[in-house]
């Protein structure tokens, strides 16, 4: 297949088109707007729907409507816009509807700025909206994965009838890398077993998240948790780099993991046994694998992220606080640096020798 130099945000739309996404609903926000631009330019050309909404809330609720009709719909935004979408995302999860949401994270809180950050981890991975729900969350670290994980997000969201996120950041959205185009494209028909398609066959299908009876709602909540357990046990994904003999294990996702990979190589030149564990799914979080690592050796973890340590809490919980988990982080639109990671690596190595 063709390989082209492509911007991360553009790669999302290429992935969406190959995944059979037929409805894009969006609202401008930097640094995610190119996803909207590309959708406006390409969706109508191939007979798919593009609608620019009047707000983020409108966009996510258009997704809700299209998803209820069985369509493969998506939206994209960044921090403040995702905050606004949370009510709609809870409704999608509560109605068990498939949809893909892309978050090109920027720095917060509040207006913050348009620089990259990973401060939306908690609001996206832990649900964010009201109620006992979870999103499926994929974390790309390259332009290639921006495309591939958009496709994967559609697959998973339809497999589990659950909203799926591609959680990316301002660097990945804006940077340009070679993209190998997908091998095949699909365009499945709406699933008439649950969708409301405006025909006689689907007349009796019901899309709703209202349960006035307390016991019924509790039962539904337990069913949701069972679904999340299945997802947790079967859909987690991660990448290891030089982890076999590592006594210092960097844990990092997204753009930060790219810097960590360099740090592993630099540290090993200095004879320090460092490895990288990169979660590719944030829910399900590959916690069992981290726990096995923690139990297999005396090691120190370093969570490297562009937030106040939001993922670090998941690492600590996963390994049951059995090992130290240090934090290297930047915020405010700054990117983790190789020097910053190495400083902490040397500090930990000195302490342990």
């Amino acid at each position, binding site marked *: 297949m063709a390989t082209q130099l492509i911007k991360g945000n553009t790669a999302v739309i290429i992935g969406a088109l190959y995944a059979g996404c037929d409805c894009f609903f969006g*609202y*401008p*926000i*930097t640094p995610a*707007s190119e996803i*909207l*631009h590309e959708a*406006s*330019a390409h969706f*109508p*050309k191939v007979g798919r729907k593009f609608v*620019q909404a*009047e*707000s*983020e809330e409108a966009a996510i609720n258009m997704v809700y409507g299209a998803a209820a009709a069985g369509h493969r719909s998506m939206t994209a935004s960044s921090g*403040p816009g995702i905050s*606004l979408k949370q009510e709609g995302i809870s409704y999608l999860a509560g109605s068990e509807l498939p949809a893909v949401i892309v978050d090109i994270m920027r720095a917060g809180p509040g*207006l913050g700025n348009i620089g990259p950050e990973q401060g939306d981890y908690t609001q996206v991975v832990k649900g964010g909206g009201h109620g006992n729900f979870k999103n499926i969350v994929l974390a790309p670290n390259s332009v290639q994965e921006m495309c591939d994980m958009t496709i994967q997000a559609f697959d998973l969201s339809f497999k589990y009838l659950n909203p799926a996120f591609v959680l990316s950041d301002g660097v990945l959205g804006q940077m340009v890398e070679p993209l190998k185009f997908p091998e095949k494209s699909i365009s499945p028909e709406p699933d008439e077993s649950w969708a409301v398609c405006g025909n006689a066959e689907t007349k009796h299908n019901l899309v709703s998240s209202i349960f006035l009876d307390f016991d019924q709602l509790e039962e539904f909540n337990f069913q949701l948790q069972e679904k999340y357990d299945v997802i947790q046990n079967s859909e987690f994904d991660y990448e290891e780099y030089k982890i076999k003999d590592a006594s210092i294990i960097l844990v990092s996702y997204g753009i930060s993991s790219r810097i960590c990979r360099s740090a592993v190589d630099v540290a090993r030149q200095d004879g320090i046994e460092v490895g990288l564990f990169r979660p590719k799914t944030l829910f399900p979080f590959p916690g069992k694998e981290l726990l096995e690592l923690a139990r297999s050796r005396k090691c120190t973890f370093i969570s490297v992220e562009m937030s106040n340590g939001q993922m670090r809490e998941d690492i600590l919980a996963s390994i049951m606080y059995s090992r130290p988990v240090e934090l290297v982080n930047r915020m405010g639109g700054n990117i983790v640096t190789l020097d910053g990671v190495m400083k902490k690596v040397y500090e930990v190595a000195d302490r342990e020798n």
Partner: protein
Amino acid sequence: MKELLSPGHTACPACCDTMIAKFTLRALGEDCIIISPTGCLEVTTSAFPTSSWNVPWIHSLFENAGAVASGIEAALKAMNKKEDTKVVVLAGDGGTLDIGIRSISGAFERGHDIIYICIDNEAYMNTGVQRSGATPFNATTTTSPSGKVSFGNPLPKKNMPAIMNAHGAPYVATATLAYPKDFMKKVKKAGSIEGPTYIHAHAPCTTGWGFDTSKTVEIGKLAVQTALWPLYEIENGTITSVKKVKNKKPVEEYLRMQKRFKHLFTKEGGEEEIAKIQKIADENIDIFGLQ
């Protein structure tokens, strides 16, 4: 006279937003509180830790200017401190016509004593020229691109002054930065009226519309002279004044100067599309009695 909006901000040369902000402050003086929702004006005048504002100023989220203004006005009244202080929103068209329309509607329905000025540069300039509800028919933007099958934005501009008038606002006016005396007169008048007042200001954007930075005012004047931007005042539901258009110019003169309409002159079928825009101008003449 001390300028209440200091130079040194990061707006583009010939920026429409800062011109309108400056004229607003010249008209109202120091005793006002400015609310700016997200947009070029807010970003270019308030980069932390600097500020161009020599009056109290607060940023609100994109969708909330009407609510934040309501809160400030209510708090001033609760503390018996309202007196002559003007609570003024300076918002863009996206923040007013699209995402912010819910909170401006609430503020006007409740009747807060605020002045709401919409700086209408007809697209989302701060995020890269995406279409808004104020984007005129056939303008190309990054989300309504002209191309083989499209002449750009296929929808007419939302009539926001009519919507605000329908809220029963005591004063609704249109204005433009190209006639600053008229603009400042209207701002002063809005300030003298108790209750929610609304001014919708035409604001040519050099970056988003694609014209030379020396042409901002010229383009603003042409919008009025072609009758594409009628200037009028509505008081308590009745049109009380209009600026007559003498020697009406064809809309081509206005369109030709802007890159956002360039495709109308290069693409096949452009002439018919220009005729549709001429019809909008001609209808304005009839609706507002401009001649």
